[in-house]
Structure formats: structure tokens, C-alpha cells
């Protein structure tokens, strides 16, 4: 399969690889997996409690190149965004940016799911009714 240049770039120089302390009350963790291929992805966000802005994001993905690129891009995109803005990121945006072929769409879905799961986790730590 021919990966696009952007996928290769993220794959070779993934942005924001790593972990944030899971127990930190300001950190939300999303852990998702795609059963069709067995890839797993962890995406974490650190949220400023006052402004509701995502200050930092990290990911770690055990999976295909597209999944790594999608999650790397996702961490870049969510940084500096509010939770609401982060939730508005759609997998189709990722597909477009990385020019993913149809068979790799589920990899981008995984990244969208990971953002949602991380936000949900953060909200759970802060009581559901908070700003989004």
C-alpha cells in the first residue's frame, strides 16, 4: 500500500508520543481498539480547568502506519482547543488531511474515538455537567 507523504511524515516523526500521568485529575485518557485488525491506541489530554482548553496531548499507538499518523495528527489538532472544539474533530477531517485510502478509514475512526474517550474520561473526573 502506498502511504501518502503526510502519513510517512507522521509515521517517521510522530508528534507528542508518550504518556501523561493517568491519575492526574486534569488528565483525560482514552484507550480504544479496532477489533478488525487488533490495533490499540491511547490518547491523553491535559486540560486547563479554568479555561477548559487542552494544554497538552500525548499518544501511544500499537498499530498500522495510518493509525499512528492519525493519532499523531489528532494530538496536534486538539492542542489549544477547547473540549467542545476537540469533540468536533471528525474522522473524515483526518482522512482528508492524510489522504487515507478507503481500507484505512477505520484507523482514522479509531483516532476520533480516542479523542472522544479522552474527553469523556476527563469529564467523568470533573463531574459530567462541566463546560464542553
Amino acid at each position, binding site marked *: 500500500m502506498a502511504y501518502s507523504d503526510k502519513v510517512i511524515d507522521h509515521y517517521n516523526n510522530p508528534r507528542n508520543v508518550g504518556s501523561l500521568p493517568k491519575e492526574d485529575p486534569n488528565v483525560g485518557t482514552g*484507550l*480504544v*481498539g*479496532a*477489533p*478488525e*485488525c*487488533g*490495533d*490499540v491506541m*491511547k490518547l491523553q489530554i491535559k486540560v486547563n480547568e479554568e479555561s477548559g482548553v487542552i494544554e497538552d496531548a500525548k499518544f*501511544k499507538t*500499537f498499530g498500522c502506519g495510518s493509525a499512528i499518523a492519525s493519532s499523531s495528527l489528532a494530538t496536534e489538532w486538539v492542542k489549544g482547543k477547547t473540549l467542545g472544539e476537540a469533540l468536533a474533530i471528525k474522522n473524515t477531517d483526518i482522512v482528508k488531511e492524510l489522504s487515507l485510502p478507503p481500507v484505512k478509514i*477505520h484507523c482514522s*475512526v*479509531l483516532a476520533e*474515538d480516542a479523542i472522544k474517550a479522552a474527553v469523556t474520561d476527563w469529564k467523568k473526573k470533573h463531574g459530567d455537567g462541566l463546560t464542553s
Partner: protein
Amino acid sequence: MDYFEVFGLPRQLGIDTLALEKTFHELSRKYHPDYFTTASPSEKTQAVRMTALLNDAYRTLRHPVRRVEYLLSLYGFKPDSSKVPQALLMEVFEINERLEEVKGGTASVEEADSLRALIKEKRKRFDAELQQASLEWDELVKSGQPEAKLNEQLARLTEILSESSYIRNLERDLGG
């Protein structure tokens, strides 16, 4: 015609693979192009189509995991990423992290061995669970249970199957 029908089998998961192989060879002979040299073009195409279908059916049904996957697809069931249990993901993620260290050469020999044993154990448990649930499915079908019961079991099989690709990846990454 679905794959079970190709072999004249009921939609059950307990399949005698030796018998399956035998039927496969018999049917392959029956549809072999050599027998159709004097047949009409439409009969020839039909025979070619049957041969292709037969090959797909055989490859799918002889494999215990693919067999279950196929059965589920007949009923519209499919492993769903939103239903993978969080505990499983956590475990898989952790094993992957340990595996990374083993591959990177920073882990001890004992760690590598214990990881290998752990993955082996997971495979064993998975195979046993799948086999058990497959047997249960066959029992339900044979005793003519209502659809609700069957669906319950299909959901159970789907849940078990969602673990399959994770284990396969871990085995692959471990290098067999």
C-alpha cells in the same frame, strides 16, 4: 448459496475437517473444467463459478475462527470497536508495552519468557472459550431454540471473537 450450503452442511460450527476435505475434493472433481470441455458456454461459466465458490467456502469453513466469523456475518453480526471491553484493551496495551521492551532489548530474559508464557496462555483460553461457545451454538440450533436465544449466542460469539485479532497481533509481534 452460502458456504454451508455449498457443502450441504447445516449452519453449525462443529465441523469434521477430514470429512470436509473429502467433500471438497469430490466437489472439486465434479466441477473440474476437464469435465466441461464439451459443455455449453453457460455451463462452463457456471462450473468455473462453482469452483471459485467452493474454494472460498473450503478455505473459510476449515478454519475454526474464520468459520465463526463467517457464521456471524450471515446473521449480520460483526466485532464492533465500541464493544471491546475496556479491561481487554488495558491488558493488550500493557502487554504491547512490555513486548516493546522485550523487542528493544531492554528487558530481561525472564521477562521475555514470562511474556511468551502469558500470550500462550491467552491463546489457550481464547481457543477453549471459542470452542465452548461454538458447541453451545450447535446445541441451540439442533434443539430448535427461538431466535432470541440464537441471537444471544451470536452476540456471545461476537464478543469472544473481538479478542481474536489482538491475540494474533501479539503472537505476530512476538515472532511466533
